[in-house]
């Protein structure tokens, strides 16, 4: 199933907006993870604007698809997707990391549209397994549980406990997506902790594996479509999405120094202009430049 030209354009725009808003929130919130937010922009665009069966008007709809962001530090991109999808006003994004604002990592009690709370890596797939088991009990056969993991995150043993159980329970309503951006917090995976042969690991743990270019909307969509409608046959499926950490901002690409670092207002402005150029959009800078500078000086030294 190819995307219609309109849909393709919409998804491309959404991915672009998710990138922009992630940078804006992190700069204005003065905290956050740029690299891992930018690497999954296309994944979230396809999920939230095409694949997920959800209803922002009825966020508790029992048969909705669930998305668990196990790499919860990617919250800026997720919050952006949720706001763009209509769960809450875009303006709320600018409360990111402020007291009583959007939480740095995910807090489902604070923010509508979030399915879980997170922060510590490695725990989300277990929760997704529990949801998949629960939904199967409810006989919500059409519902799917998606879980996005970081590549570095798969160092955590908890991930493999969950993987083993998902296969044991034949959870073909569960789709894991690894944002395989090759970089963890402090360097490349192969330097810090090699995870290869990665496909073989998942296969040996009983999963179907599909590899995909994680920035190719068409490919992602095709893979997710297959995962939902064609492949399920008594096994969970993992989509290994080959991505570029920091995708869209040259300086941040594959650069662990931009894993977690908030750009100051001027840098954010530069990044946002670069993003516009990269994605062929009208050049636009940081929308909250002045407020951001004031906020930075107010909190200086903390």
């Amino acid at each position, binding site marked *: 199933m190819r995307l219609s030209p309109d849909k393709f354009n919409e998804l491309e725009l959404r991915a672009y907006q998710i990138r922009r808003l992630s940078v804006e929130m992190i700069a204005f919130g003065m905290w956050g993870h740029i690299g891992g937010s930018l690497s999954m922009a296309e994944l979230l665009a396809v999920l939230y604007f095409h694949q997920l069966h959800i209803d922002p008007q009825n966020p508790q709809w*029992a048969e909705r698809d*669930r998305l668990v962001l196990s790499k919860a530090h990617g919250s800026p991109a997720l919050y952006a997707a949720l706001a763009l999808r209509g769960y809450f006003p875009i303006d709320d994004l600018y409360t990111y990391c402020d007291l009583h604002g959007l939480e740095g990592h995910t*807090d*489902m*009690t604070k923010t509508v549209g979030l*399915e*879980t*709370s*997170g*922060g*510590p890596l*490695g*725990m*989300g*797939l*277990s*929760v*997704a*397994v*529990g*949801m*998949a*088991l*629960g*939904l199967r*009990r*409810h006989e919500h056969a059409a519902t799917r549980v998606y879980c996005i993991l970081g590549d570095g995150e798969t160092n955590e*043993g*908890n991930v493999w*406990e*969950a993987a*083993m*159980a998902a296969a*044991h329970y034949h959870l073909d309503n569960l789709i894991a997506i690894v944002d395989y951006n090759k970089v963890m917090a402090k360097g490349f995976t192969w330097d810090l902790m090699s995870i290869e042969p990665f496909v073989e690991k998942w296969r040996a743990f009983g999963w179907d594996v599909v590899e995909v270019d994680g920035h190719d909307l068409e490919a992602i969509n095709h893979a997710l479509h297959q995962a939902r409608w064609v492949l399920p046959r008594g096994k969970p499926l993992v989509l290994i999405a080959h991505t570029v950490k920091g995708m869209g901002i040259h300086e941040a690409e594959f650069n662990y120094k931009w894993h977690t670092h908030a750009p100051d207002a001027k840098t954010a402005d530069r990044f946002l202009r670069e993003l516009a150029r990269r994605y062929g959009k009208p050049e636009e800078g940081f929308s909250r430049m002045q407020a951001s500078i004031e906020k930075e000086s107010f909190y200086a030294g903390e």
Partner: protein
Amino acid sequence: MPASNHGGSTLPEMRDAFGKTLVELGRDHLNMIVLDADLHTSSKAGMFKKAYPDRFIQVGIAEQNLFGIAAGLALTGFIPFPSTFAVFATRRALDQIAISIAYPRLNVKIPGSYVGIPTSRAGASHNCIEDLAVMRVLPNMYVADAGDNNDLAAIMRAAVEHEGPVYFRITRYTLPEIFPANHQFKWGKGERLRTGSDVTLFGTGMMTAQCLEAADLLQADNISAEVVHLASIKPIDRQLIVESVMHTGCAVTAENASINGGFGAAVAEVLGEEYPAPLRRIGVRDRWVDSGGINDLLTEHGMQPSDIALAAKAVLQRREQRVIR
């Protein structure tokens, strides 16, 4: 049901009462699911499996996953009871319990089996002395330790009625009966089991029975001990603690756990803040609890009724001698 002859009685072990109550609750609560990590015939969660085989989920020896899956089930409308030994809940899966369950305040009920000293003879790695301090420090978590089987059943009913995460302890031991079959448990409420005027003995879990025995010993020495059972450790009954100590002027706490940061600490916190009074804490004194017979261990760790009585005499003496500024 296997029975034991503690104190000459032939009551079921507490873990059997646990299994039985699970089955009873499961009858009314069709959304209850019991999960196990390869220990269900020890914990007796297996009684639920037998009664409702399709509401039982086995996850193998993987406690992190056990609690993560429980969170996922709670998020899809079930009331999960992820069951394992208390040490493995407390220590192996603390991050999952804290962040996947307690932080979002999910409706998960965590039974901690094999607590404190009477843990068959498995020894230090299995004798859970940390759970009271650890569970008490998690925001949103409720914590209870039952004084007998009827108390446990009441706690389990209250756990299901409370919307949110609960941790409750199951002693691997046969405790003497203290409460009637229709006993009611309320979160944050203690029970005065015996009134007295010289000293208050605050017990939780199996140590309440030890306190009652200690009160008899003290009686023989003409010391009038009040015994207060605080099964609800969090929230704790601040009012009853203060009320009782206002009356008696001194207190002993007794818990089947480390005295660091647990139940004794909770009482010390309340007294310090509300009514300072001489206090002693009975429990495991910052040591690992090795293998051994139960009574040998209770003696070794100074947790016998006679130890409680001695502590009571000590606080009483301090109350009398108290230098007032």
